[in-house]
């Protein structure tokens, strides 16, 4: 059973890539992700200038499952894109450069650098829930989403993917992004959350607030994909809490054609996770009598 699939015109060997921010900011990370067996590399969100990120703790595992992070968009700045792209090419892998910005000028600036460097696509981070002035602060406003996607799409030839997060006007934002030229959507990012240590009686993340990821957000992601696919029939990359073939299959049935994995790559488990998802998906398609992923996309919409 073949698992290959096209996402905004890019041919992928199978539907599993890494999520932005899981490694993906140095050359060495790209080689490691390639060894995990992903079908495309997604970089850490890159901004024009390098960013140090927040003081530790930046990532913690929660007792209830899931992970909370506020890394603070630490990244080496746009100068590093060239090296990341070149490294992915060495492994014959498509690379999607994730881009962050405070306004359309910064997004355009980094996007141009990504295209010049030979990136296959860019993903606009319109959804990080804990970096001041970035992410969801702009991504929850449909008109700003439209402006940014339009400005970026109009200067690029490579496809633009908009990564959106949970917010009241998600379907409207998604629709504006597509009208403005986005070829696909990544749904969802982490969900704003916090964790308090009950012995020291203090919030644990240095930034106090962070983004929740992992299995606890999976049902939110499935719902977001389902609603957006139902209304817009867009190309969707599902993200949020995927950790095995079932959680991936659920997203495909809701309307996703590919999935991204972040938290499940914890403790270096990437290779095992990718392999077991792929073999599970093959077996699942066989059981359902489907010939490819295409036949499964959005199947759960028929109710």
């Amino acid at each position: 059973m073949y698992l290959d699939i096209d996402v905004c015109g890019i041919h992928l060997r199978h539907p599993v890539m890494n999520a932005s921010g899981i490694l993906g900011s140095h050359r060495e990370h790209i080689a490691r992700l390639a060894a995990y067996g992903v079908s495309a590399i997604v970089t850490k969100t890159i901004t024009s200038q390098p960013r140090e990120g927040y003081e530790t703790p930046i990532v913690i595992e929660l007792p209830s499952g899931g992970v909370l992070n506020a890394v603070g968009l630490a990244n080496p700045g746009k100068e590093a894109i060239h090296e990341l792209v070149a490294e992915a090419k060495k492994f014959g892998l498509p690379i999607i450069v994730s881009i962050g910005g405070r306004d359309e000028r910064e997004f355009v600036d980094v996007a141009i650098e990504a295209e010049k460097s030979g990136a296959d696509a860019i993903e606009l981070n319109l959804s990080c829930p804990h970096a001041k002035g970035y992410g969801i602060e702009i991504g929850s406003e449909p008109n700003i989403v439209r402006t940014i996607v339009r400005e970026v799409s109009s200067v690029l030839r490579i496809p633009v993917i908009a990564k959106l997060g949970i917010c009241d006007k998600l379907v409207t934002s998604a629709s504006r992004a597509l009208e403005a030229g986005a070829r696909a959507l990544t749904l969802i990012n982490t969900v704003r959350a916090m964790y308090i240590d009950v012995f020291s009686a203090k919030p644990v993340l240095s930034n106090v607030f962070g983004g929740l990821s992992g299995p606890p957000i999976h049902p939110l992601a499935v719902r977001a994909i389902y609603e957006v696919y139902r209304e817009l029939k867009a190309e969707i990359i599902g993200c949020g809490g995927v950790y095995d073939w079932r959680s991936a299959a659920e997203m495909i049935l809701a309307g996703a054609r590919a999935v991204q994995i972040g938290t499940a790559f914890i403790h270096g488990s990437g290779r095992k996770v990718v392999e077991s998802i792929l073999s599970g998906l093959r077996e699942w398609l066989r059981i359902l009598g489907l010939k490819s992923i295409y036949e499964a996309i959005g199947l759960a919409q028929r109710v």
Partner: protein
Amino acid sequence: MKPARIVLNEPIAEDLYLLEIELVEPIDKEPKPFQFASLWIPRVKEIPLSISYAELERSRFRFIYKLRGRGTRALSETLSGSFLGVKIPLGRGIDLRELRGKKLLVVCGGVGIAPLPYLVRVCSENGYEVHVVCGFRTRQGVPPIDLVFPISPHSVHIATEDCSVGYCGDALTLAKKVSKSENFDDLIFVGPSFMLKKACEEFRDVDPMISLETLVRCGLGLCGSCYIRGSTKLLCVDGPVFRCSEVSEYLAGLPD
């Protein structure tokens, strides 16, 4: 992040502290030698520290730390009875079976002594012999060996660079002397990076193990800050101990 209470936190040499914590809830997996922890000092920061000793039955863990900057200073000022958060155990540590035999020479510089007491315990429980060479700058820097090692190594050789205690010189020179007079099955070096680089050069023929330090931010294999230059390894997942040959590109990039 597991809650823990400080039961002991006191100076044992110049700028060197011994810390003992007790986890609020027990963990059931015996750590491996050279695994480490990340200690969260509430509203200050997290600090990665080697597990210096572990008594799982009592949920007690020991650390030895050197005053460096804001975090270690804040830790030294934190009183017994206070609560911390800990990520433990982190890293892969070492599996005794990957060693080339049962007679080891372990060489440390300064606070590099930290992970040795637990290594000695696990080794002695499994019939391994650990011989220790430790170098310090001055007499004031040398901690009381009996206090540091709840279980004694087979032998301990001390060197000081100011010639005030033991061998007159650095740990590496003494290690060369000791390893010439006796045969060892495997060598492990723990210390500042210039010492590790030199150890890999001078003991090239035996390809020893070295314990590295890189910037550990998440400790979970997600953020990538601990990557080892020129390799696909993450220190917090695959380390901190490697054979010199596994990290040669990283070593080449270090200053001499």
